[in-house]
């Protein structure tokens, strides 16, 4: 049995929120004091601020803007920095955070407003690496290939990636001076190359990973796997894709096929 020790119940929760009205505008920290409620999480605190947008010193303010949708940690929307660590706000329970909670937006993505950022680059990376099984069409062509329960298990785990951005936020190689696409998209290449039909187009995806923004950008800091809320073995994916791209590059060199990023 894993029962977490609850912290002593505070009368109030202090929420310190970094706010910014839009890109390029000055940022500020606003402090809110909310009555303690059982089962509260960061989301329900932010909802309470919507119902009563007044800071701790009694100044009326605007409701905090943040991204969220499912509140069950399957949609990936509500990623933010909570008490200095990157995570989903919905599973950030006040009882486990203590009486003071600081909220900041992700720092590796363009800011939209307050705690909301633009993670479009992650979806663009999925386009770059062709993260799909190419199909002839959605008409009836019977069942797909049979698969072993063992293969299903590892592929399912990779497939639970919700594009939340934790791995990019934590990665020292994702920064202004690097084009590295981050662990999430690399891991999707491993997923689609592992699927029997997806594997038919394996080389295309590997070649995409050989570009400047690809797997060579990884600096092996291993932060990604630490922060992944779904426990996806991202470092295993990175290592495997590193190996596979090398093999692909050699194959391409032997066959004289042009590979981006590999000088022949």
């Amino acid at each position: 049995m894993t029962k977490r020790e609850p912290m002593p119940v505070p009368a109030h929760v202090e929420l310190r929120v970094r706010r910014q009205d839009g890109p390029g505008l000055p940022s500020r920290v606003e402090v809110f004091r909310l009555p303690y409620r059982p089962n509260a999480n960061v989301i329900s605190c932010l909802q309470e601020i919507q119902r009563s947008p007044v800071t701790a010193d009694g100044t009326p303010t605007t409701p905090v803007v943040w991204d969220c949708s499912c509140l069950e940690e399957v949609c990936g929307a509500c990623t933010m920095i909570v008490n200095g660590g990157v995570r989903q706000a919905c599973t950030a329970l006040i009882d486990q955070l203590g009486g003071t909670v600081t909220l900041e937006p992700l720092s590796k993505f363009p800011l939209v407003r307050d705690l909301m950022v633009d993670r479009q680059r992650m979806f663009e990376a999925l386009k770059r690496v062709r993260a799909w099984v190419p199909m002839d069409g959605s008409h009836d062509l019977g069942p797909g290939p049979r698969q072993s329960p063992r293969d299903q298990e590892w592929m399912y785990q990779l497939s639970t990636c919700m594009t939340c951005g934790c791995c990019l936020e934590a990665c020292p190689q994702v920064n202004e001076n690097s084009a590295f696409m981050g662990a999430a998209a690399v891991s999707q290449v491993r997923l689609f190359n592992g699927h029997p039909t997806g594997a038919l187009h394996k080389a295309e995806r590997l070649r995409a990973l050989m570009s400047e923004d690809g797997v060579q950008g990884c600096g092996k800091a291993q932060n990604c796997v630490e922060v992944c809320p779904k426990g996806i073995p991202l470092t295993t994916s990175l290592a495997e894709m590193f190996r596979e791209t090398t093999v692909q590059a050699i194959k391409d060199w032997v066959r004289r096929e042009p590979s981006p990023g590999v000088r022949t």
Partner: protein
Amino acid sequence: MAEGRYIVVGGGLAGLMTVLKLAEAGKRVDVFSLVPVKRSHSVCAQGGINGAVNTKGQGDHPDIHVKDTLKGGDYLAEQPPVKGMCYAAPGIIYLLDRMGVTFNRTPEGFIDFRRFGGTLHHRTAFAGATTGQQLLYALDEQVRRHEVEGLVRKFEQWEYLGNVLDDDGACRGIVALDLRSMEVQAFPAEAVCLATGGPGVLFGRSTNSVINTGSAAARAFVEGALYANGEFVQVHPSAIPGDDKLRLMSESLRGEGGRIWVPSDGRPTDPVTGKRMPPRGEPWYFLEERYPHYGNLVPRDVGTREIFQVCREMGLGIGGRDAVYLDMTHIPPEVLTRKLGGVLEIYEKFRGVDPRFVPMEIFPGMHYSMGGLWVDYEADARGSIVPSPRNHATSVPGLYAAGECEYQYHGANRLGANSLLSCLYAGQLAGPAMALYARNGGKSAAAAPQAAFGRALLHWKDRFEGIRGMGGKENPWRIAGELGELMTESCTVVRENAKLRKALDAIDALSTRAGDVNVLDPGRAMNLSMAFVNQLRNMLELAKVIARGALLRDECRGSHDKPEFALPGPSTANPKDDPGFMARWKASGERWRKTTLARYTPQGPEIGYREVPTPILEPEPRHYD
């Protein structure tokens, strides 16, 4: 002249399947979504997707799926679309398989199937316990491919505001709000499909995502589309209450053997069945005792009512609270992790207790709307759906609807694992129907009168300038909170006419107060307060449809339970053996086995009823043992 574009509003399963079908036919599609489509509410579906693939040697067949679905919905679902859906289901599961959905497998490498509520067959394919997420991702990937190829444009973080209607009342496009810039823009289309999901937020805390306000469907209703069966609201038996929402604990937990119980208080017999109760403190598996055949897998409306009865009437909830146990602890932990990991993880993260070793505490929560925009279908003499521009067409020409925002497939109660299926099947019909509409007589958007677009655009620009200036004394989120409590109290499990009348008055009062809100935020970027003030008005209109529909329907059917009008039960174990009961049941059915149709008027919804044709299956008393 180049053919125009098509618009799909909503990027969940139904929306993306509609997009896929249009793109595959070479059509250009604009998809509008409040969130990046990959974050749509379909991700929340946990348990699986139904299809009578019959790989378990149990003699399952699409016809049995049809019967389970129609009976589960108490014969209010439209029969030809249900038949079409159940027959298409195995092919849809295979299609998803080909897209790379990581369905759980049998040792021989086939897709595994598990049991779900309202059926006795293993009919539900699943990917761990995050099947909806996995299905949505597969569709998202396929649509992304078409996006790269240039057929699909995504407008993410855009909100649908309303239709562009021409002088004949046909839909020629939409007006949408770019939440990033708060600018309003009009978009022409050959045809528009709403795939905007359910209205969970109307009930305050529900199992739905926060984006599920029902605002888009409500606005289409206000602009003239008929709304059907609004009063049929599914309350799922098993959820865990949180401060911000109710979190679903999938029916698949029971499908894999989970047992519902409360500690017995030692009374000698169950007042409902007259059966002996276990000694005080011992587990009383009341669903298994009351329904020996279906046990813990009775349909959701039945399960929810039993849990309510045991907690509220018998006072047997755990510690006197609104809670019962859902017990998985007799199943090997490694099996649980493999088949149900995703949902058990949610419980552990939010409750701090590992449900593989400690029974979960659950209680019913608002989950799904069977009702939605009325949509049409076309079937041949045998009740088989045929390709037609009428399929999934709303009562507004050129406007289509697919998924939870439409009413066709689930009648008075939806069976578990039929929702993902109905979304995908609806998309498979809606896409081609839109293309046929444009080809056969729909008016080209290119020739649309500019005046109609100008009018619509002006209306919404004025509306949002008006909202920006609102400096009244009410807080919009508080009004929504009060609406949620009101709807949960009056329009969920047990309904009473006196309460419903009061609720309608209270909704009117909230509507008046909503006219005096403070917008709280004058910002011109990502101003979610302004967007919400607009949504709130639509939510209140939809609340009236639900409450009024519930008030006028004086019977019990599926999720709609009004004890003051319950038929006295049969005196025999099988209702068909009691001629007196059968006569009462028949008379009541003739009066009430009808689709509720709501039409908007500024004074409140006007409610009418329409016969449900039965070309496939003759109704019989709904009975589970």
